């Protein structure tokens, strides 16, 4: 794998070449990744993979014109060619008013090294999962996954930073008859994940979710486990709290800053340094990611900015730039929904007269952006709750619901924070939620 020293040498080489060729400013971003994956079904491992990738991206400016080029070949020769291509692109680009590249910054780094790939240990852990599932009469499928990412960013104004970011995951789906269950453990990979425990939770859910009955579409009180909350909340990153969406009038927050947008029990921040989260601690321009309070007790308080939107808004960047130039502007990368006093999922269920428990949502998407109306399916364990008890499994349902409205009807916020993701990727730190009158619009056959 590309090490920080080799990455730094390549970046310095590129900056020297750019300066020699007459660039006014230049930036080099190096990203190298090693990814270990064992993907399995109940029958056998499907994939045993160790992927190595690297990318060197060069952004140059000359005479108010900007160009960018990148290469996956981390050699001096390829980087030299990349600098030439970036300069050629800049020459042909229209002149634009661009914010000056930032100078040297004070960064707080994660300071962790890369994960050590150990295919034998990984395969052994996977074997423990499939054995546990088989012993319970279940079929299982899942992944044992670890990723190490080295990011280095240097520019001609003296900014230089690099850090490692690591994430590991054991994710298991279990199936028995017509029942399905899912569980997952996620962390930074430097502490071993408990694969058998994950398997046990998935198996338990699969067994309990057998013989599901159909319930009619309509509005139900729901308890959403963290994985279900994550697939809703991630859409506020892509469609809400980025300053460009607000400036363009496409966000549900347009014209609503300072106003109540969610219920008083909802507080949301973007915090790259939350102890449970993962991801880079500096942004696509090399600026430190700042903690931004987005919603305080239901009131819209903040947005995330890059240098472009900050300039348009007359404020400072919050360190949320994507690699530049970014067509869709800045985005939160570490949403954290504040924990409440509601205990865990079981405690939230305890206070419910009749409703549904949702393990996961599948394939959620945006129907309408200004109310953040979303649709998606339940998956891997949906249960009917009566008088505070799970009384049986139900067939999967399609929800179609405005997230902004749903977050005004939260009647319980769990204390069970988890690092969670969703089908389209991204990470959030969220607890379970209990929501009143969540809208389900149709059902399916399983």
């Amino acid at each position: 794998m590309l090490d920080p020293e080799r990455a730094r040498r390549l970046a310095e080489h590129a900056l020297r070449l750019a300066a020699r060729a007459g660039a006014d400013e230049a930036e080099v971003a190096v990203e190298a990744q090693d990814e270990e994956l064992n993907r399995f079904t109940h029958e056998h491992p499907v994939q045993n993979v160790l992927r190595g990738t690297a990318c060197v991206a060069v952004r140059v400016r000359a005479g108010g014109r900007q160009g960018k080029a990148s290469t996956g070949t981390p050699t001096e020769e390829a980087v030299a060619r990349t600098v030439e291509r970036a300069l050629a692109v800049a020459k042909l680009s229209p002149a634009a008013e661009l914010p000056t590249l930032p100078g040297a910054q004070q960064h707080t780094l994660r300071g962790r090294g890369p994960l050590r790939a150990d295919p034998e240990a990984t395969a052994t852990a996977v074997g423990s999962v499939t054995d546990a599932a088989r012993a319970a009469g279940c079929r299982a499928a899942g992944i044992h996954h670890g990723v190490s990412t080295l990011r280095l960013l240097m520019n001609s104004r003296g900014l230089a930073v690099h850090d490692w970011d690591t994430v590991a995951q054991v994710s298991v789906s279990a199936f028995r008859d017509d029942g399905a269950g899912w569980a997952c453990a996620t962390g930074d990979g430097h502490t071993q994940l408990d694969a058998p425990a994950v398997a046990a939770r998935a198996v338990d859910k699969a067994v309990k979710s057998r013989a599901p009955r159909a319930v009619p579409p309509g509005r139900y009180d729901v308890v959403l486990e963290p994985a279900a909350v994550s697939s809703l909340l991630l859409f506020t990153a892509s469609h809400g709290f980025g300053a460009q969406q607000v400036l363009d009038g496409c966000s549900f927050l347009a014209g609503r800053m300072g106003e109540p947008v969610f219920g008083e029990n909802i507080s949301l921040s973007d915090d790259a340094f939350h102890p449970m989260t993962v991801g880079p601690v500096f942004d696509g321009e090399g600026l430190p990611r700042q903690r931004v309070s987005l919603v305080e007790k239901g009131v819209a308080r903040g947005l995330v900015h890059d240098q472009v939107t900050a300039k348009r808004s007359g404020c400072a960047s919050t360190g949320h730039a994507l690699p530049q130039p970014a067509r869709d502007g800045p985005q939160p990368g570490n949403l954290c929904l504040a924990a409440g006093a509601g205990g865990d999922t079981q405690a939230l269920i305890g206070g419910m007269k009749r409703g549904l428990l949702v393990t996961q949502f599948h394939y959620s998407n945006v129907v309408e952006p200004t109310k953040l109306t979303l649709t998606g399916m339940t998956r891997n364990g949906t249960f009917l709750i009566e008088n505070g008890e799970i009384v049986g499994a139900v067939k999967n349902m399609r929800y179609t619901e405005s997230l902004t409205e749903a977050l005004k009807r939260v009647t319980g916020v769990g204390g069970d924070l988890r690092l969670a993701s969703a089908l389209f990727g991204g990470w959030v730190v969220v607890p379970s939620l209990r929501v009143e009158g969540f809208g389900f619009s149709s059902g399916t056959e399983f």
Partner: protein
Amino acid sequence: MATQQAAASSLSFDSLAALGAHALEVAKKTKASWCDVRLALVEREELSVRNGEVSALEQDEQAGFGVRVMLDGCWGFASGYDLTEEEVRRVAGVAVALAKAGRRAGPGRHQWADEPAWRDRWSSTWLIDPFTVPLDRKLDVLLRADAILRQKPEITSTSCNLSFRRETQTFLSSAGARIDQVVLRSGAGISATAHKGSETQTRSYPAAFGGQFLAVGWELVESLDLVGHAAQCRDEAIELLSAEPCPVGDRDIILSGDQLALQIHESVGHATELDRVQGWEANFAGTSFVDTGKIAGGFRYGSPLVNLVCDATVPGGLATVGYDDDGVRSQRWHVVRDGLFVGYQTSRDVAHVESTAQEGAPDAVGVAAAPRSRGCSRAEGPSHVPIVRISNLSLLPGTWTLDRLIADTEDGIWMAGVKCWSIDQQRLNFQFTCEYGREIKGGKLGRLLKNPTYQGITPQFWGACDAICDVGDWRLWGVPNCGKGQPLQTAEMSHGAAPARFRKQAVGVRG
């Protein structure tokens, strides 16, 4: 015509093949029953103008290689980016070690279908190489289209995009195959977002989410005439701000070709990938309701009008290649014939499942006694492991003209342009929202409808298809961003479709 050289990095097919031979040599010294190596250069150019400013103008080239080894029925795959003999040997050794380690997770049970070991060279065809078109000419198209989109104050956001990608790849296998391929894909599109009060509406041309994509050259951009269509795109976005909402109820719907392409993709394409059926995607993208019992039983997927054909040889298709990443020659076959399900999309890894399931099937056309792959194994690039991907899957045209079809519809809705899609993990319950709707009353297009939405269950939906427009309205539509697999891979494919009618569908957002 195709370049015979991986030009940007001065890598030739022969130099790639010489490097790849070292990986085969490493695997040969083990008990590996199979080894293949793909070495590739992927060149990409992205241009985007947003709200009058150039928001992306980037060139990228990624060279790398991936080595796949099967040992005692277990796979190992490793990839690297340093194109040196030493590194190729090291990565091949890692692939072998992974395959060996994999046995600790469970017995290796992979079966690998026999296929000829081809030695061939293949290329997409194009008229104008987009990488030779000057950047200022490309930007001029985008800036002129964007200026027209922004001519009215209701438009708050615009996006105009061009995208070009060329993959130059050499495939070698331990069975003696060597396949050199060049695949070129181009894309172009514009969109305008209008905003007023609490309403936001977007309209795109010629399709949403980046536009139209085909495996052709710069001639795609010229044929689309983005500048000439910008005013209509802009005005339709503005008109949608004051449109009526889509009614709730049961209506006949006529879907445009681009929307139908996504419908095919989600409710037939993914549902008939045999790796999904086998549970290989069960923890991520999901499984499928099209279990293997349905192939021998003559499962009715749609009405007798419905013929869905995979064709990895169709000119311009994004999944059109000479050979897949298992080294299998491209093919054309029916997935649904006269409404009945007759064939999966397969790789060499899962071909035996289809072969077994089809024994005794009345429609077992084209499946030999020995398992044969349909050639659907593709990887995003050399650093990814090949998985079963949707081919160019198309709905064959019918006999109607669009005018006649609308005139024949008493109470319906015309829906066009992809806006939102969602489908359950077995590919049964779907809900789609389009950009643009028009009510149809008494055989005539009527009032404009915003957020036209329909929801259904896959076999019932296709069973309600009673009219398909003819070849005059049939086009290939590109899907450039199909996500599948862990780690997530993006693949491209096309779906041919003409507008078609589906009787009594649930429309509007219920709940």
